[in-house]
């Protein structure tokens, strides 16, 4: 019976890990479709390479920073088979690492969409390693492992700890605000703004690809949210329903406010999903619908301001999407999680407000440090000539459609 239970938990978390791993394909195709053709190969290589770099640094450093656990023991210990092993049976701790790794690796995947089309390859990889190995797990551990007693302080001050069930703040806002720093340090793409400051639109290469990316992310998101319960016994359909309601709210609001624009439609679904992560375990489904709808509007409005008014050349709009909708999600959990609004309660608005704002501010600073150091030390930007040729040829020596591009004889 015990083996059956631990095996069930392993399978449960593994399923979550695999679904979030699939989301990384979604990140990749969202970027492939949104960038110009000359940068598609770079988007694909960057996303997969970042995931694997994240794997290594999170295994050796990041996971220890967040949870004080390291895997430098023999395999019999790791799987809980050996006498006196601190690890759970059936390799539960290992699959939990895999699951949380897929979250950690979302940080560079989010940033990638903002800095697309002009960043150098290895410097970007180094910055990703710093963020996933150190800055992300530091905050992750504070929120999800109670490190430094900050959750305890919030609970004693405001009546409840900061609730971020699946990472509106820990993953999305943190990734989005780190991306803002990276985008600002990198500067706008060549030819993005006229000398008078007005924006010159740069068209996406492939709307079917970016729509595919949005679909893959949306499907995988149910592993991201539901499996955040981390134990089969704790699974609840509320998280699943809330997630789908927020997705619907986000898409529909973005479709209306964004006038059926496919870019807004497909990012609108994601905006709703980003915002619902934090409170998906507490909200009423109607509260989740409202949370998602607000996020959908928030994305359309702030994306437009970001590009045209503030002149931030965030290619995919990752700061509005993950940074701002994530921040809203953390706060929304303190509103729609309340019993007065049909939620399960046990949540404090002030804790949510503090936790969310501190997370965003911390991430902005951390992103500025990591990308700032790399910029000073080795430089993060392609040369003008390389940028004009495209990251595909400049970095990878091949375009996305070699047969078409090479001269046929």
């Amino acid at each position: 019976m015990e083996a059956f239970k631990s095996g069930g938990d392993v399978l449960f978390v593994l399923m979550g890990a695999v679904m979030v791993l699939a989301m990384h394909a979604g990140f990749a195709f969202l970027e492939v479709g949104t960038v110009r053709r000359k940068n598609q190969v770079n988007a694909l290589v960057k996303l997969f390479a970042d995931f694997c770099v994240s794997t290594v640094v999170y295994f050796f450093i990041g996971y220890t920073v967040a949870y004080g656990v390291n895997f430098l023991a023999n395999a019999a210990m790791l799987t809980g088979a050996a006498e006196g092993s601190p690890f759970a049976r059936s390799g539960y701790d290992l699959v939990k690492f895999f699951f949380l790794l897929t979250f950690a690796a979302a940080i560079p995947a989010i940033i990638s969409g903002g800095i697309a089309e002009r960043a150098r390859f290895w410097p970007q990889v180094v910055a990703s390693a710093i963020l996933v190995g150190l800055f992300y797990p530091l905050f992750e551990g504070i929120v999800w492992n109670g490190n430094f007693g900050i959750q305890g302080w919030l609970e004693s001050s405001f009546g409840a700890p900061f609730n971020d069930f699946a990472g509106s703040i820990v993953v999305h806002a943190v990734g989005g605000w780190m991306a803002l720093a990276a985008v600002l340090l990198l500067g706008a793409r060549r030819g993005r703004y006229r000398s008078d400051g007005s924006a010159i639109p740069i068209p996406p290469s492939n709307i079917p690809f970016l729509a595919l990316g949005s679909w893959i992310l949306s499907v995988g998101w149910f592993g991201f949210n539901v499996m955040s319960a981390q134990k089969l016994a704790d699974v609840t359909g509320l998280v699943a329903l809330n997630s789908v309601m927020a997705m619907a709210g986000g898409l529909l609001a973005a479709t209306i406010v964004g006038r059926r624009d496919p870019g807004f439609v497909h990012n609108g679904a994601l905006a709703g999903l980003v915002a619902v992560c934090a409170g998906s375990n507490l909200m009423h489904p109607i509260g989740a619908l409202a949370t998602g709808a607000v996020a959908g509007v928030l994305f359309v409005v702030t994306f437009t301001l970001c590009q045209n008014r503030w002149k931030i050349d965030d290619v995919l709009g990752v700061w509005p999407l993950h940074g701002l909708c994530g921040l809203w999600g953390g706060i929304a959990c303190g509103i729609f999680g309340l019993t007065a609004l049909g939620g399960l309660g046990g949540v404090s608005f002030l804790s949510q407000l503090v936790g969310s704002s501190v997370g965003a501010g911390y991430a902005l600073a951390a992103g500025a440090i990591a990308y700032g150091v790399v910029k000073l030390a080795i430089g993060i930007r392609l040369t003008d000539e390389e940028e004009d040729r495209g990251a595909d040829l400049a970095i990878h020596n091949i375009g996305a459609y070699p047969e078409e591009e090479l001269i046929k004889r």
Partner: protein
Amino acid sequence: MKFIVAIVKPSKLDAVREALQGMGVAGMTVTEVRGFGRQGGHKEIYRGAEYEVHFVPKIRIEIAVGADIADRAIEAIRDSAGDGRIGDGKVFVLDLEQAVRIRTGEASAGAL
């Protein structure tokens, strides 16, 4: 001999081909082209940003015919490619000096 160049809507290509083949035109060359006339371009919008499409996609059809059937060919193109709207396209007619069939060396009308 006349050389007829017709710029038509892509959706009309099949109708034009049928009409020309039906009246005895023995061959044609087709190219996908872009351009503007009175129709001008159009605007596209993605995530709130407007893109001016100055050149719209068209099909260029080239045929070489004997002078005797040139007028009928032009009529056939007009009948099959026209919707009566701006953007239907244009027909240009040029005098054709010479034509040669590469395989046999036949020249002039015999090559068509």
